[in-house]
């Protein structure tokens, strides 16, 4: 059940309506049932993975808290890490590493011992495993007490708005809210509606309209002009942003309708003036997770300079690998890591801080960052390293006589509209912004978003990109 499906648009109002009709003590159970129904609509059997992960982490955290011996605590944490990372290893990475080692396996006659697994990647596995891991790690470090109510913890792991593609929530933020009583408040309803509507607009009118053009460019790049390839790369940057941003908005909005607040995942990332700033604005919940649970445990910046450099590279490469089991994702992460370090080095040598620069230089820095991010996306989107390199080579070939792609004027118009919204919302969120406007402006915006979503939504089939991670 995708967010941009009729099933979800029927499911969500039913969940919200019943939620407010139920007495407070039963609401968690209703949300838990709804969440499992939501997840099982993809592949029912994979709910067992969530149940397994939930059971292991619930009890692991409990025993970590109860035991006083550090060794025992470590053992329970190890079990949690092994379970969650093991799930990822089997479902997401096994075939990749097996493929990489194929020649070696054949040479040592081990290929039958390690067969290729015919397993479909469970939707959202990278998200909920990271979320539950954060819980046990927080309990291990004494940042959280373990949850006593198994049902609430199970709901924290499976809460449907953010189950399959985040935002990745920490228990300290979401757990308490799941236990609280949320009366029906008009502002929650209005803000939730605004977020869901804007999210659908961003996904359906922007991402789904540019995606066929992106597909065309990535499939036929060999015969396209540099200008068309540049357009395709720009459109992919838009597609992935609109796709994931739209999803996150709907997730936050759906939770808001239930009176629950989720963390924001995006803050106008393409307006970032550096790669460092980009990662503070893009997929914020994942960046935060890596900072808290990988970068800081590695020592953060309180280590030697060389260790710090390697820590940064490790985080970015692992972040790339988190997205998918392919060298292209690793390279994508490494590019971001290298640019991050170069920017840092430049700042240290020159003593220049971007935020102190004159406005026009800040704009230039923003343009530089955007170009870097767009070019790095090529490795993210291309099926393999060679294709990505070919596309970049074609981009700089300057072959204007080759074929061109056709982009309907309405697509450019929608992009312009989206840009206006994105720039306007760089320091706020659509629901908050609309709440400050008078009735006429607010309803004018509703009309534009509703019309854009319903009359101009893309018609090709493109599921949310981040669902595959």
């Amino acid at each position, binding site marked *: 059940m995708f967010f*941009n*499906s*009729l099933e979800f*648009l029927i499911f969500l109002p039913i969940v919200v309506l019943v939620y407010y009709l139920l007495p407070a003590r039963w609401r968690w159970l209703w949300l838990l049932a709804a969440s499992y129904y939501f997840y099982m609509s993809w592949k029912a059997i994979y709910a067992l993975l969530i149940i397994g992960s939930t059971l292991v982490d619930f009890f692991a955290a409990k025993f970590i808290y109860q035991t006083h011996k550090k060794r025992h605590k470590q053992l329970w944490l190890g079990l949690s890490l092994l379970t969650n990372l093991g799930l990822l290893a089997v479902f997401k990475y096994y075939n990749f590493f097996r493929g990489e080692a194929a020649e070696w396996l054949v040479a040592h006659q081990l290929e039958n011992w390690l067969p290729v697994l015919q397993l479909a990647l469970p939707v959202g596995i990278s998200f909920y495993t990271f979320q539950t891991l954060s819980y046990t790690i927080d309990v291990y470090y004494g940042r959280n007490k373990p949850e006593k109510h198994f049902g609430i913890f199970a709901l924290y792991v499976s809460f449907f708005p953010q189950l399959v593609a985040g935002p990745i929530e920490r228990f300290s933020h979401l757990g308490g809210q799941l236990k609280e009583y949320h009366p*029906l*408040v*008009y502002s929650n*309803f*209005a803000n939730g509606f605004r977020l869901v509507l804007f999210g659908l607009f961003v996904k*359906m009118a922007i991402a*789904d309209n540019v995606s066929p053009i992106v597909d065309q460019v990535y499939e036929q790049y060999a015969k396209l002009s540099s200008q068309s390839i540049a357009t395709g790369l720009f459109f992919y940057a838009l597609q992935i942003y609109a796709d994931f941003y739209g999803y996150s908005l709907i997730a936050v909005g759906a939770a808001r309708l239930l009176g629950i607040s989720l963390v924001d995942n995006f803050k106008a990332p393409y307006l970032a003036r550096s790669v460092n700033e980009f990662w503070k604005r893009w997929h914020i919940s994942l960046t935060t997770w890596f900072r808290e649970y990988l970068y800081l445990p590695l020592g953060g910046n309180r280590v030697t300079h060389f260790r710090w450099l390697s820590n940064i590279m490790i985080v970015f490469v692992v972040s790339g690998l988190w997205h998918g089991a392919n060298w292209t994702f690793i390279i994508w992460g490494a590019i971001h890591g290298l640019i991050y370090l170069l920017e840092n080095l430049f700042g240290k040598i020159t003593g220049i801080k971007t935020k102190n620069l004159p406005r026009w230089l800040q704009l230039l820095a923003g343009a530089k960052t955007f170009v870097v991010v767009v070019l790095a996306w090529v490795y993210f989107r291309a099926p393999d390293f060679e294709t990505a390199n070919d596309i970049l080579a074609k981009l700089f070939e300057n072959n204007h006589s080759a074929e061109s792609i056709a982009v309907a004027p309405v697509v450019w118009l929608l992009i312009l509209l989206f840009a206006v919204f994105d720039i306007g919302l760089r320091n706020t969120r659509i629901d908050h912004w609309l709440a400050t406007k008078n009735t006429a402006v607010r*309803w004018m915006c*509703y*009309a534009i978003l*509703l*019309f854009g*979503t*319903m*009359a*101009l*939504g*893309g*018609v090709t*089939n493109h599921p949310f990109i981040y669902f595959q991670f």
Partner: protein
Amino acid sequence: MKVVKNIIIRLSFLVLLWAGLNYIYGNTLWYNDIDQHADTLENLWPEEDSSDIIYFGESSNFYQEHPDTPKVRISNYLDRMLPLRVGTVDNAGLVASNYLHIMQHIPQKSKVKAVVVTMNLRSFGPTWMYDQNSNYLKMADEMIAQGPKLLNRFFIALKTYDYIAPEELDEIRITAWKKPLEFPFALPYSNLYEWNAGLGNGGILREDGSWDMDKIPVACHFVKNYAFTIDLQQNPRIRDFNEIVAYAQQRGWKLYLHLLSENYEEAEKLVGASLVNIMEYNADLLIERYNHPEQNVWVVNNFKTVPNSDFRDRTFPTEHYNNRGKRRCAKKLAEVINH
């Protein structure tokens, strides 16, 4: 209670806003979307007021291989042969559900008294039913479904029609090919899949006893397109034709189901009598199922009307006839309609 009242008031305003947007859409962008996603409906507009009979067809009606051939459709011949005005609504690859959705747009005040609907035997089989074009055809149906236009447009973006991913379509098709062929006569293979493979691995035996390997692909296409069992309870095309019959009766129209000519001679030559037996069996099944003149429903049986020499295509089994073939079909149609 105040909150609930507030919400209900806002939702009511939202419904009003949506109704306004639906009106704006229906008078502006809708025409562009029809042109893009369901352009066959545009064929109906010039015909709906002036025609006594509307002919619904696919490429069998208009296909022209040679550019110098006069572009005369089966429906054009029919128009010449009848004292009534016959309008044409056609497009490549259309199937029964498309005809139904388009005919639902014929205005109530229209003077249409009868409709001729193309019944293509191949379209009942899994090879056509689950081909890669099926999603597009279903989307076209959704676009012109009865209901608010803006909602239909929204639904096609949401893929509320029965969208099946290309890989899944392949899987469904192959599963259907593996279903047993159940007929009251002996067949060389138990299912289409095995038959196709057997033919592919063997060859076509020439009269002189040598093997014609070049003809294997087209022979396989014949098997894939005609070797199937029609389940009268489950086949989606049967359901669509049932709905067409019900709708025509509701509108008080005479309904002529035009069972197209198939190249049975070529089928026999390439594959053998077994395949022709299946084709005939299925054709008879459809005639028996739908031919009820007492209910104003006729099946016009053109199954064997067009000889092999009048078929255009030689690399794929189609219902693309030359003008002589088309005229033969129209003649038989005219006879039934005049009768």
